[in-house]
């Protein structure tokens, strides 16, 4: 018995309705609302009154030097964190994919950050970055480098954030890449062995190219996540955007604009700008990847 397409669509929607309702109320409506409010000039949160629709909020945000700083910081963060952490993740995933002893132990070690509270991890890192007692300064002292004030020196704030960012992005990336690697037919490795290829050659000529679709996916996910950098700042810098407010990121700026300054409309404009940047970059990446795609 076949049902009419319309009827089965109706049925499907019925089954999906609890989920759809949740998505509409908690995702779609707020997003649409933010988009709308970002164009309302002179918007008042309490009453919802506004003067007219226009681009006023956008010009205000783009003229704000804090926002420009936030864009710059976020841009640098994405630029360093995404490629470095993805490259490291490929390496670790390849090591984890070997049939070595204690694999379970290694896997636990790598995935631990994922199941640990972000704040707890952040505090641990804050301790590691500590000027007097931190492990980093201890290690630096071993090679004769004088201690660095990682968290309280404006020059090193972004670096500290980036290192922490690279580290926190690893586990999820490794899981995805490992899944991708385990999907590669072991026959290709046997063939490469017969062809005489050694480990490194096999890695670069077989594993990486065959993993390209997964790498592409991981790059996009990581880029989107990196653009949203914000919560990483809280434990490291006591809830402030770095020392002397030097480490504003776009999301932190939106957060402050909304919760501190109560400027819903400019916060919305900043959010839309961020959305637009991420959207364009994602499209560019998808386009490049389509060109890469070889099979």
């Amino acid at each position, binding site marked *: 018995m076949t049902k009419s397409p319309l009827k089965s669509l109706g049925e499907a929607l019925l089954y999906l309705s609890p989920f759809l309702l949740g998505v509409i109320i908690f995702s779609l409506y707020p997003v649409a609302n933010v988009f709308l409010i970002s164009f309302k000039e002179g918007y008042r949160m309490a009453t919802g009154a506004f003067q007219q629709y226009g681009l006023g909020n956008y010009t205000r945000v783009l003229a704000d030097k804090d926002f420009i700083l936030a864009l710059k910081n976020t841009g640098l963060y994405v630029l360093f964190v995404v490629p470095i952490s993805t490259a490291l993740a490929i390496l670790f995933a390849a090591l984890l994919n070997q049939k070595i002893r204690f694999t379970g132990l290694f896997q636990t070690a790598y995935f631990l950050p994922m199941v640990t509270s972000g704040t707890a991890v952040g505090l641990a890192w804050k301790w590691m970055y500590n000027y007097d007692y931190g492990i980093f300064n201890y290690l630096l002292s071993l090679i004769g480098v004088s201690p660095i004030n990682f968290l309280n020196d404006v020059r090193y704030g972004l670096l500290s954030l980036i290192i922490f960012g690279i580290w926190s992005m690893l586990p999820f990336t490794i899981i995805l890449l490992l899944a991708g690697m385990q999907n590669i037919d072991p*026959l290709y490795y046997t063939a490469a*062995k*017969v*062809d*005489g*290829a050694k480990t490194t050659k096999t890695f670069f000529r077989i594993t990486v*190219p*065959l993993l390209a679709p997964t790498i592409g996916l991981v790059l996009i996910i990581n880029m989107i996540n990196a653009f949203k950098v914000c919560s990483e700042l809280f434990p490291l810098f006591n809830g402030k955007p770095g020392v002397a407010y030097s480490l504003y990121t776009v999301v932190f700026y939106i957060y402050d604009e909304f919760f501190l300054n109560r400027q819903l409309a400019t916060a919305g404009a900043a959010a839309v700008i961020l959305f637009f940047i991420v959207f364009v970059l994602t499209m560019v990446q998808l386009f490049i990847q389509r060109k890469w795609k070889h*099979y």
Partner: protein
Amino acid sequence: MQIHVENLTKRYGKTIAVNDFSATFEEGKLIALLGPSGCGKSTMLYMLAGIAPVTSGKILFDGTDVTYLPPEKRNVGLVFQNYALYPHMSVLANICFPLEIAKVTKKERLERAGELAKLVHIEDLMDRKPNQLSGGQQQRVAIARALAKRPSFLLLDEPLSNLDARLRLEMREEIRRIQKDTGVTTIFVTHDQEEAMSISDSVILMKDGVLQQYASPQELYDEPINSFAADFLGNPPINKISGTIDKGKFIPEGTELAIDVLKADQSEGTHVTLALRAESLMVNHKSPKSFPALVDNLFVMGKEEIVALRIGDTLLRGYIDASHKIKIGDEVPVSLRSRGVFLFDSHSGVRLQ
């Protein structure tokens, strides 16, 4: 190069994939490794290629022990059952890959790839990716890649099993031609007896990891060493009648017949199997030693006519002249030629005659 293996054994846990295998593969020959699925043919190839570590025994290439040498030091070309072409590389890159690993200069690589493309007839496909090729084309590319390094010998694992019937015929001629053109010692695995018989210089028949018989195709067909070999070769399959020996005659089970086929004395009362090739039956042919059989069915297969005969509970197939005048239900005399008539011990399968 000549390959010699001695008491080669491979175990996977409790399974013995290859059991005490000894043989010599002569230089420049095309040798078929024949046997039913799971009898250890692939394992045998993988041990020769160095991919599967040997459990015990020895492998010698031209007298040099290579048992523990890694694959890249053995200089073998291996074509996998499903080709295993690198999906992300073009045909050209696939063929060049082993040369690139061997640090051959780009110019020489391209030259060699050109030669090989010509040999296996894929000149027009060099820029394609494997998924843009048909099964037969992938097969050719896989052979070209395996030959790129001028291997001392070429191993082909069921090279034709993934192709459709027509292409299979074409490719088996091609493999024969390529082997002749290059003169490379080639071992090719198959479970298809016709394939093995039609193109190889010699055939190694395997069962449960054990070498059964190593002979030329003709000898294997004419002089099977045991009932397994007789069963495995030939189409239509060989006819078999179980029975016993009584007073120097063969008595088919459940009949009063006494067939006079014994060439020498056999011990009385043994349970034996008489195996008769279809072409060894002379149907409707009276002779001093002929015996009666009932015509059960008649059918045309291609250009030949085949008759199914009943003796007791056993059905035999034989060929019959197109001008015959027999009908289903007739009783006809059957005589036997001297070729293609074998007697096996029913229990052990050992050939008695």
